[in-house]
Each structure stands twice: as C-alpha cells, then as structure tokens.
C-alpha cells in the first residue's frame, strides 16, 4: 500500500506537479499572453479541429464496423476483428511513417488524390487522416460489447408491435448505443489531441498551418522556452482532464442506461 503510493508519486505525481510549480512562476497575465498567442491559437485550431473531425468519422465507421462484426457472419470476420487493434498495437512513429508513405503523391492512395488536386500530406487533411487511424479502435471497442448485450427479443418485440426495420433501428437499437458511441468519441478525441508520433511525419509542421499543439510544445522545449511550453501544456492538460471526467461520467451513464433487467 505504502509502496503503491510512493511509486505512484515518484513516477506520476511529482513529475506532473513540477508542471504546476513552473506555472506558478508565471503571472496570470504572462500565462494568458503565451496561451493565446497567434501561433498557439492556430495550433489549437488545427489540433482540436482535426481531432474533432477524426473522432466524428470514427464514430460513423467504428459503429458500422462494430455492427458488422457483431451482427453478421462473413468470411474473414476473425481477421477483421483482429485488425481493429492494429492502431493500438503499432508504435505511433510507424503509423505516421506508413500513412505518410501511403498518402504521399507517389503513394498507394496519394497517387489518386494528386490528380484531383487533393493534398493529403503536409496538410490538415493528412493530420485528420492520421488521427482517424489512431482513434478507430476506441469507438469499435466501446460500441461492440454494448451491441453484443442487446437482446434479440427486444428487436423482435418491436417488429411484432408493428415497427418497420428503420423504426426499430432508430427507436430501439440506437438509443442504448448512444452513450457508448459518445464514450468512444470522447476516447478517440482525447487520444487525438495529445497525439504526436503519427502526426509529425504527415503534418509537415508549418507554423499556423499544420503545427499541432504537442509539436509547438516540442519546439518551445527545444528552444529552452520552458514557460512557453508549460503554458501550452497546461491548456492541453485542462482539456484532457475535462475529457477524462466526461468519459467517466459517460461510463456511469452507460451503466445506468443498460440498467440490467434480470
């Protein structure tokens, strides 16, 4: 017990506390100026914007994939299920490298985008795509178990009561899934805003255009601008903790919603 707390403090709490200490060295005014500089604001926009879009895409395709995996039997289903976890398992640097190669103008997919005038690397689009890759498992793995728990009888009851398949889907299947979909969204979004490895390769890191906040922190650190880095980190941590709280709240909601009838 004592050991647990000491180790937790040494590895996690004390290091994070230094962040607070560093912040305390600054005045509110300084903090505000740094955290709202044009370059910082541009980086929030790209980081949160791309993360939001990516998490939204993940909710759509992740739910679709979870549905296919739970409801349908098709050849290769086992492999598809295993592939979902690849973005979890792959080191982020490799993901970034691989996606850059695929989307580059001479890459497997990039070669088709190039003639259309779509620039997929060194652009916000590339960042979004990298974040889609990173976030996919979160949605699938939160929606999947909830979908598995839905009783087939409930859908049958809806059908016998005169609901069309679309009405059954909308009124009976989707509502219990909503908390899980939101949780998946929050998890994917939280992961995306902090993501670094898979994005640096594809982003091109142009100031005001494709510079994500973690990268801006990195460059502040490299310039030994510790207050600058600290202020930005603080903003990110606040958002992360808000997401963490939201996820916990959603978890409680999901459990209440599922309110097991036994």
């Amino acid at each position, binding site marked *: 017990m004592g*050991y647990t707390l000491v180790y937790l403090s040494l590895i996690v709490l004390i290091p994070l506390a230094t962040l607070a200490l560093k912040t305390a060295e600054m005045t509110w005014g300084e903090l505000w100026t740094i955290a709202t500089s044009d370059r910082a604001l541009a980086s929030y926009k790209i980081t949160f914007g791309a993360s939001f879009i990516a998490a939204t895409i993940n909710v759509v395709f992740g739910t679709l994939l979870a549905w296919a995996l739970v409801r349908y039997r098709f050849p290769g289903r086992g492999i598809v299920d295993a592939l979902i976890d690849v973005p979890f398992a792959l080191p982020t640097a490799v993901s970034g490298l691989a996606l850059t190669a695929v989307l580059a103008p001479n890459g497997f997919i990039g070669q088709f985008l190039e003639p259309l005038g779509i620039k997929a690397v060194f652009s916000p689009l590339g960042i979004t795509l990298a974040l889609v890759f990173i976030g996919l498992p979160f949605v699938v793995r939160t929606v999947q178990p909830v979908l598995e728990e839905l009783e087939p009888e409930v859908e049958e009851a809806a059908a016998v009561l005169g609901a069309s398949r679309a009405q059954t889907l909308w009124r009976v299947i989707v509502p219990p899934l909503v908390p899980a979909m939101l949780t998946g969204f929050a998890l994917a979004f939280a992961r995306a805003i902090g993501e670094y490895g898979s994005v640096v*390769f594809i982003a091109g890191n142009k100031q005001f255009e494709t510079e994500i906040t*973690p990268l801006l922190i990195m460059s502040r650190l490299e310039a030994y601008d510790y207050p600058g880095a600290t202020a930005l980190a603080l903003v990110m941590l606040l958002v992360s903790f808000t997401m963490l709280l939201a996820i916990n709240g959603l978890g409680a909601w999901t459990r209440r919603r599922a309110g097991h009838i036994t």
Partner: protein
Amino acid sequence: MLPLERSIPRAATTEPTWVRRIIIGLGVGFLLLFVVVPLATVVIAALSHGASAYGRAITDPHALRALKLTLIAAAISVPLNLVFGVAAAWAIARFRFPGRALLITLIDLPLAVSPVIAGMVFVLLFGANGLIGPWLAANGVKVIFALPGIVLATTFVTFPYVARELIPLMEAQGHEEEEAALVLGASPWQMFTKITLPKIKWGLLYGVVLCTARAMGEFGAVSVVSGNIRGRTSTLPLHVEILYNEYEYQAAFAVASLLVIIGIGSLIARRLIARRKKEST
C-alpha cells in the same frame, strides 16, 4: 428455448442481403484502406531495395545500438510497472480506503496525458534549467538526454497497463480462496505464489505484453527527453525518425518493419492470451 434455435438468423430482425453487403463492404473497405494498406506499404518499402539492403539496414551499428537501448529501457520499466501493478491492484481489490476511487483515476492519468507532456515534465524536473537538474549535473548525474530519462519517460507512459488489467480481474475473483489458504496454514508468500498468482496469471501476462509493446514503441515522450543523439540516445522509433529526416527512406522502413513485427507479435500474443484467459475462467 433451445440453444439450437438461438443461432438461427431471425428473419424479422435482420436486414436485407444488399444492406448487409453494403455495411460489411463499407466497414471492411475502411479498414483495408486505413490499416492494411499502410501496413503493407511498410513491408514493401522496407524490401524495395532487395533483401540484402534490408539486412544491411537492420544490422547497421546505429540500428543495433537503438535496438539495444530499446530493450534496456523496456527491461527496466516493465518489471517496475509489473511489481507496481500487482501491488496496486491487490491494494485496490482487497481494501476499502478513503481515496480509493481517486487512486484508480490517478493510475489512469498517464493515459490521458499527451506523450509530449509526459516527456516534458521530466525535462522540467531534471533538465539543465529544471528543478533539480542543476544539482544533479553538479554531482555528475545525467538524466535528460541519457538513459535514465528514457527509462523514466517510458515508465511513465506504460505505468497504467498492468494495474488496469489486474484491478477488474482481482476485484471479480474475490478473496475467499486466499482466506482458505491462510486458514489451512499457508504463509502469506505461499498464499501469493500458490493461490493468487495462478489465478491472475493470464491477466498479468496480458498486461505485461501490452506494457512491453508500448514501452518498445513509445515515441513522443522519449523523443522529448532523449535529445535524439544518433547511436547514443535514440531508441528504435527515434532511429526511424532520424533515418527518415535524413532521406534514408528504405532504411527507415526497414527499421520500422522491426517495430511492425513487435507490434503485430504483441497483438497476436494478446489475442492468444485473451483466449486462454477466457477458457480458464
């Protein structure tokens, strides 16, 4: 009422075949495009200059040094987190104490923190302008831009994995068998090795695999603290970046393919362990 009847598709509650095909097609297509194609690209690019170029790239002295450093960092941080994970899960599952919920949340904290910030806090602590960095430097201890920093950052990001795996498992299993063992005259150590450990072994192994894979693949946090000194403080993922920035694409992909093997290997191991775990409960 019969299990047999359960497995039969129920006409009233399934979609027409064409709808099913579209859903499966969209889902699988999305996965192919986003997961399979990039994976295949790494392998193809790694082998683009032939097998001997691939061999040269992965046996390059710098690559080998990076591999060695990666293994050392994992070899230190994984056992540390393993011991912590077991201790924390045991305390949480066994006792009710004030702040228990807070402890669980704190254990998850590193997952919510951006890897860059994870690395950054160690720079703030041990860096040249850091809190205790100057004092350490005066005593000849180098943490940042050296192995200790890499180990610390790796330990931080892989901190929750074992504990997270074990807490629900140990909570679900309860404590009756341990109590029976104690009543039958087992020492606490015998109780742990003969009763608790066998009960949690698959969960433990699962957590260790997850922790190890993440430790070897960590990029952002390590990148902040390592200083990227080629052949000295670069781990495998950092080495990939160095090669890429130096336009050594084929070598970058060759080293990346090693990481793909580690990642996919851990994925397969996890699925096998999960199956065993399911069978044993």
